[in-house]
């Protein structure tokens, strides 16, 4: 499928989405409540068949937190970048995509560990890299550590 066909298909499925222009890959900005639905459709529909989650990463844009999903279809060879944002810094949470792409289980644990973004219905949401008793989320822009960090 070409990017335009993909755009058309996605606009049919969910409402309230945006397609930012001039990006390397086709990018789609999804509202948090339709993330799970879109992910399932992208994975299960034979024409799109996004069977490979390349990466799942958290981003702190200071004004909001985001999660970025890089998707690829190994059969159709097309790419899609899916982004979801929230302005809630206290208790950010999104639906998990763990049962759609199993690799998301540890990616989501890492994003939780570094950014404190919770994933609803995740089977085992623990810290992945840091110690279990670590306080704070170190990759957030407002993270402070007087002893260990060299401020700049």
């Amino acid at each position, binding site marked *: 499928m070409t990017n335009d066909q993909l755009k058309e298909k996605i606009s049919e499925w969910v409402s309230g989405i945006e397609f930012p222009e001039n990006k390397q890959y086709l990018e789609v900005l999804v509202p948090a409540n339709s993330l799970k639905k879109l992910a399932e459709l992208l994975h299960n529909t034979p024409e799109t068949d996004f069977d490979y989650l390349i990466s799942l990463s958290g981003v702190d844009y200071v004004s909001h937190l985001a999660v970025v999903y890089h998707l690829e279809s190994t059969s159709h060879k097309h790419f899609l970048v899916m982004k979801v944002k929230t302005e809630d810094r206290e208790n950010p949470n999104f639906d998990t995509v763990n049962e759609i792409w199993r690799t998301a289980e540890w990616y989501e644990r890492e994003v939780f560990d570094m950014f404190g973004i919770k994933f609803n219905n995740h089977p085992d949401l623990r810290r992945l890299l840091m110690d279990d008793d670590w306080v704070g989320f170190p990759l957030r822009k407002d993270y402070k*550590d007087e002893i*260990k*960090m060299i401020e700049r």
Partner: protein
Amino acid sequence: MGIKIKSMKNEDFLDNSTLETLKETGDNFFLTTIDDIVNWGRSNSVWPLTFATSCCGIEMMAAGASRHDFARFGIEVYRASPRQADVLVVAGTIVHKMVPILLRLYDQMADPKYVIAMGACAVSGGPFFYNSYSVLRGVDQVIPVDVYIPGCPPRPEALLYGVMQLQRKIKSKSITNPNEVEEK
């Protein structure tokens, strides 16, 4: 007896001449000759530990390879065991998860042991690890360091220079008080 290192000019040391003044003639003159012999042996067979955590390790390997060949100065073979090593060249970034391993290696080394902090990461926490939760702010936070070599990474020549400085430092020590160089 002045300390001379082969093929280094004396004026290179002018900005750092305090080490010689530490070992001015004074007491224990019976032992000075033995000191000279022991220090001659120690300073000319400083064996480094095979320990490199990032790109400085590549420069350290280059310093050991044929072009720069620091075996010329007696920094002979890389030892894979800390029991056989004399100098710990901290070549690279030390993150907080690496600290216990570094400490264990340092503790396992037999006295007399020396530490060279090689590169900006080991000296001070790195040129670009600001606002980082994971990187140690210089290896001297956890173990005593004898020689600091700045650079990112330092060229092999810089490591050679640092190793020569370490040899000078070793030559200014005394067997009666091996770990401390006291000012007289």
